[in-house]
């Protein structure tokens, strides 16, 4: 009997060493939840994304699907309808409304792939505009230009943008003399109407 038990123990030990216990996510435990739906208590789970904890209980703060990750002992909610807001790391498309010496103000109209119903205001500082040293914002972008930028941060609700990157920068520029769209001739932008030449920090797909 003893041998047999030892043998069983060894088999168990060998099996457990070969394949460590790794519980998988259980997609069958997805539940539809609304704001305020109780998801569990803090002794069971940690409060993940889309949830909050109060008085030892975890609640959803979105309409969505609650999923429990048994390996991480976490519960989170994937929202069904997120508001369209600029988030850090997202690419945006917008129009320059004011270009000053060191700062440009940009009206954000597209966030990721979604059009924003009302524009948000972002700020582009000259130090985050180009990998090179830029003397003035007029060499990066000017008023009315269409730019693609990345959201660098949204701390305190201020949307700070950056255009460092090949795919980031001006997508379409307009002549500061006559307002005619500028065409790319070699590395400079030229106005076909008044022959004015200007400089910008261009995205690699300018005017395409």
């Amino acid at each position, binding site marked *: 009997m003893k041998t047999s038990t030892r043998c069983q123990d060894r088999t168990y030990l060998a099996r457990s060493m070969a394949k460590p216990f790794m519980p998988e996510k259980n997609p069958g435990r997805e539940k*539809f939840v609304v704001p*305020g739906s109780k998801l569990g208590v803090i002794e069971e789970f940690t409060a993940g994304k889309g949830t909050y904890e109060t008085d030892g209980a975890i609640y959803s703060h979105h309409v969505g699907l609650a999923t429990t990750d048994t390996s991480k002992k976490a519960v989170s909610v994937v929202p069904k309808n997120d508001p369209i807001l600029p988030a850090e790391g997202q690419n945006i498309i917008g129009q320059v409304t004011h270009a000053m010496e060191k700062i440009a103000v940009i009206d954000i109209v597209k966030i990721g792939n979604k059009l924003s119903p009302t524009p948000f205001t972002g700020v582009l500082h000259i130090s985050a505009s180009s990998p090179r040293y830029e003397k003035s914002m007029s060499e990066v972008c000017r008023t009315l230009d269409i730019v693609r930028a990345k959201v660098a941060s949204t701390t305190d609700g201020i949307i700070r943008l950056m255009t460092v990157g090949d795919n980031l920068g001006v997508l379409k520029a307009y002549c500061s003399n006559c307002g005619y769209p500028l065409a790319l001739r070699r590395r400079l932008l030229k106005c076909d109407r008044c022959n004015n030449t200007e400089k910008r920090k261009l995205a690699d797909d300018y005017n395409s």
Partner: protein
Amino acid sequence: MSKEKAPERLIDDSGLRIDGRRPEDLRPIKLEVGVLENADGSAFIQQGKNKILVGVFGPREIHPKHMVLPDRAVIRCRYRMAPFSTEERKNPAPSRREIEISKVIREALEPAVMSEYYPRTVIDIFIEALQCDGGTRCAGIVAASLALADAGISMKELVSACSAGKVGGQVVVDLCDLEDKYGEADLPVALMPNLSAVTLIQMDGKLSREEFEKALDMASEACRQIRNFQAEALRHKYQGMVDTEEPPATGEASK
């Protein structure tokens, strides 16, 4: 001017109210979510003869800029009664009552909205009462809460609301217009049922301490029922996206 006459009795001998309900009965409620295409979130409520439409916009950039709050979103609410919503034409200009109700609805919803997630933005709530039959502030809160959830705004809990009051010497729930006008007292209550938190309580008229406690209990119970209808309405809108049921967490957590 008005055709309306004061009813002789608001509760008959068999204990039924003027519209045939028992004291603890709610009026029939119909809730719909996502009824407006152009709003970020919307809802429609029909509670008895009340018909209220709510649209929510935001979080979006705030104008005028001087209203901005650096650490959270501003919540703006406008409650409005349509000129054709009452028996007599209502002047479309914003009245003192509408301005006050806008304020109390905003204050009833503010504790539920996690506005600190959306600094420097605004959330606009537009409540349009198309047909009024008493208890429109409560119905407005119920629909506004749904519209906020439909807009994807983070909320601690759905806010549900219902009124209780004293009519013909009896404490009743969900007063209609006649009961509201000719009854002895009215007590609108808004509640976050799962958190057991009251976000609005007002009282018009006189109630004894016992009557007040009974009315509050009845209104809270009605709010819990309405909360289930709200969850059902949200599930109905998103039913194409989900297969599973909502956990029955409401009852336990609220006690």
